[in-house]
């Protein structure tokens, strides 16, 4: 089958590679470098398993800047273009996605269009009504950033937002991406499928918030936080994943889903979901006070992956620390000119804040302030989904 994928991001490329064992896949998007790289066989993923996969399987993947050409002859169209969000209202900005769907619908009438990205609950049905086409459906992806190809090849489950024959047909194609048979697939309504994606992020967010609050308690009461978490998580109904405390949520997806759910929920009498979104504030205040207690001359913030925007808990911590009178220096990764800033940063700071303890910090572990209880040994799951 010829499949067109609109998007050049991690999900698009992972889907493309996984489907291209048995289908002809064309990727399309407006990023010339990426198109060129993909056509040269260099797939822009963070998943280290790409090379081994390509060595083992023959794949038929090309990329083009010309969306119309990509769509020509397509029998199935996937759209993977993450939405941006209005920073004021928290609403997803869907105009660009709508344009892409309209274009795909116009060029390929009747061809199923599958939305893989997280969209507002109700969006797919709105597009169906708008275009008068029942062939638009959503099938949210559940890939992790650093294992996107592995997750595309070994999906734990699959959700398709169409209860009828179209859903079964599209589901069968998506299942062909999996290396092993027996993946559980569930057909459901379009809004329900959209909701599963957001609630799945919300469940993780609630977990992160819970273990962070447990850790705040342990920190305030001088308890061994790791022992408490170990004891709690030995309950198989609770489990040992996503339980490593951190400074707070960062990244993009979890906060977006939470903001979306909260704008959607209006004045329903809910507590868990709204609280999970803003539970960071008290924790940041407690952590900042613990850092200031050490009376530091120079606080360092170790953020080797760079700053992930205004929702980054490190940014919030920095603000608090500065307000508390601390001198704060930021480390955001090696300088482009290859200069070794890290040694200077480590020498200069007497307290260094790190979300996660990396080998880079081993030699100055006495200076590190972190709530990473498991380092990379066990249960290392970054809260930056």
């Amino acid at each position, binding site marked *: 089958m010829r499949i067109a994928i609109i998007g050049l991001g991690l999900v698009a490329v992972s889907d493309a590679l996984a489907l291209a064992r048995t289908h002809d896949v064309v990727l399309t998007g407006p990023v010339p470098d990426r198109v060129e790289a993909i056509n040269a066989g260099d797939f822009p993923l963070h998943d280290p398993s790409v090379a081994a996969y390509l060595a083992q399987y023959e794949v038929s993947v090309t990329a083009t800047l010309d969306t119309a050409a990509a769509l020509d002859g397509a029998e199935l169209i996937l759209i993977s273009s993450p939405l941006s969000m209005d920073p004021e209202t928290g609403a997803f900005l869907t105009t660009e996605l709508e344009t892409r769907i309209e274009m795909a619908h116009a060029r390929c009438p009747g061809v199923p269009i599958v939305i893989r990205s997280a969209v507002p*609950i109700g969006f797919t049905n709105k597009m169906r009504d708008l275009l008068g086409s029942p062939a638009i459906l959503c099938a949210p992806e*559940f890939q992790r950033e650093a294992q996107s190809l592995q997750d595309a090849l070994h999906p*734990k*489950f699959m*959700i398709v937002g169409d209860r009828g024959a179209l859903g079964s047909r599209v589901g069968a194609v998506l299942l062909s991406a999996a290396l092993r048979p027996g993946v*559980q697939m*569930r057909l*459901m*309504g379009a*809004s*329900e*499928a959209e*909701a*599963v994606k957001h*609630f*799945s992020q*919300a*469940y993780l967010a*609630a977990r992160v*918030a*819970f273990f962070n*609050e*447990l850790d*705040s*308690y*342990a920190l*305030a*009461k001088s*308890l*061994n936080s790791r*022992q*408490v978490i*170990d*004891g*709690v998580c*030995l*309950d*198989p*109904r*609770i*489990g040992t*994943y*996503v339980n490593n405390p951190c400074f707070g949520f960062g990244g993009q997806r979890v906060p977006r889903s939470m903001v979306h759910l909260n704008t959607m*929920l209006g004045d*329903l*009498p*809910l*507590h*868990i*979901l*709204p*609280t*999970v979104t*803003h*539970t960071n*504030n*008290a*924790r940041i*205040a*407690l952590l900042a006070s613990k850092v200031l207690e050490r009376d530091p001359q120079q606080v360092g913030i170790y953020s080797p992956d760079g700053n992930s925007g205004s929702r980054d808990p490190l940014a919030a911590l920095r603000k608090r620390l500065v307000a508390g009178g601390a001198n704060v220096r930021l480390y955001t990764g090696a300088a482009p000119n290859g200069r070794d800033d890290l040694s200077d940063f480590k020498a200069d700071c007497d307290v260094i804040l790190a979300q996660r303890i990396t080998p880079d910090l081993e030699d100055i572990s006495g200076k590190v302030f972190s709530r990473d209880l498991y380092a990379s040994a066990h249960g290392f799951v970054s809260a930056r989904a």
Partner: protein
Amino acid sequence: MKIAVAGLGYVGLSNAILLARHNEVCAVDITPERVAMVNAGQSPIVDVEISEYLASGSLTLRATLDPAEAYSGAEVVIIATPTNYDAQTHAFDTSSIEAVIASVRAVNPDALMVIKSTVPVGYTAALRERLACDNILFSPEFLREGRALYDNLHPSRIVVGEVSDRGQMVADLLRAATLDADVPVLLTASTEAEAIKLFANTYLAMRVSFFNEIDTIAMATDIDAREVIEGLCLDPNVGDHYNNPSFGYGGYCLPKDSKQMLANFADVPQELMCAIVDANDARKDFLADNILARKPQTVGVHRLVMKAGSDNFRESAVQGLIQRLEDAGVDLIIYEPACTSAEFNGHPVENDLARFNAKADLIIANRMTPDLAAVADKVFTRDLFAAN
């Protein structure tokens, strides 16, 4: 080894039976009926495994009303007396534990006392200091009502709140009594062990509330809660358990443990623990409004128990709904075979199901059961999976 067990509730009885498989156990309780039943090989509570083991005659277990008889000569005393949550003081009432400790110290000062009752975080350390007695350990209990013995025979983990040889000895004693190999054992300080118990139950309360909130959203929109929950729980990390919407979390442990957790947080910044407690009340408010909007004349309450297989309606969520409906002036009748009196909180009990079904124009049921199938159109439930 000679072991005494104080208290013959779920926790005490299951621990007594568990340990009496390999040790000589004497259990003490203040209720003559319970003591007589245990000595006659009968279970005073509904629990399949407890009944089987008591009837089997394979245990070295006897029960007594006389504390001195039980405690004399015992190397270990398991304390499993009730610690009810006192809403006025925002704390568990631990007086029954302290009464046992006083009584043990009077007859057998060298006995090692192991608290199995749920206590506030920091309680054991403070008590040891206050009593100048270091023969007291805490070991949390993780059993479910109705499966108390099963959960002790197949524990998810054994936690003992002292990192010491005798802490290890207590862990070995409990582990030797299980039916599973390789049960994880964790020795911690006493305060950590207390926190493990309360945080674990608070997590489960959060989980119940999380799925109830999804259901509340579904009720307010046209989203199908069942599809969403089934889809979400295909993720093995989320898991297909503790996800069936209900009238709220309830039973003996989750409400009191989450409230105690919140009280323990008094001087620690928290938002989520508070939300977990508030969410349960908000859920009942929302459901009560929804029921009242149907303008029922007589509401039938089908079962007061929290779970099928339980005979216990302490703190069951439906009671929160009963209270709210009563406050709104609705007539209520109760169907509860485990309730033998003619009235419950002033509402008539009607245990003839046909008459109950006929009298009520709306029936609320935390869990749907086959006996309601004939009147399904009258039933208000949020049970999506016909399961606990």
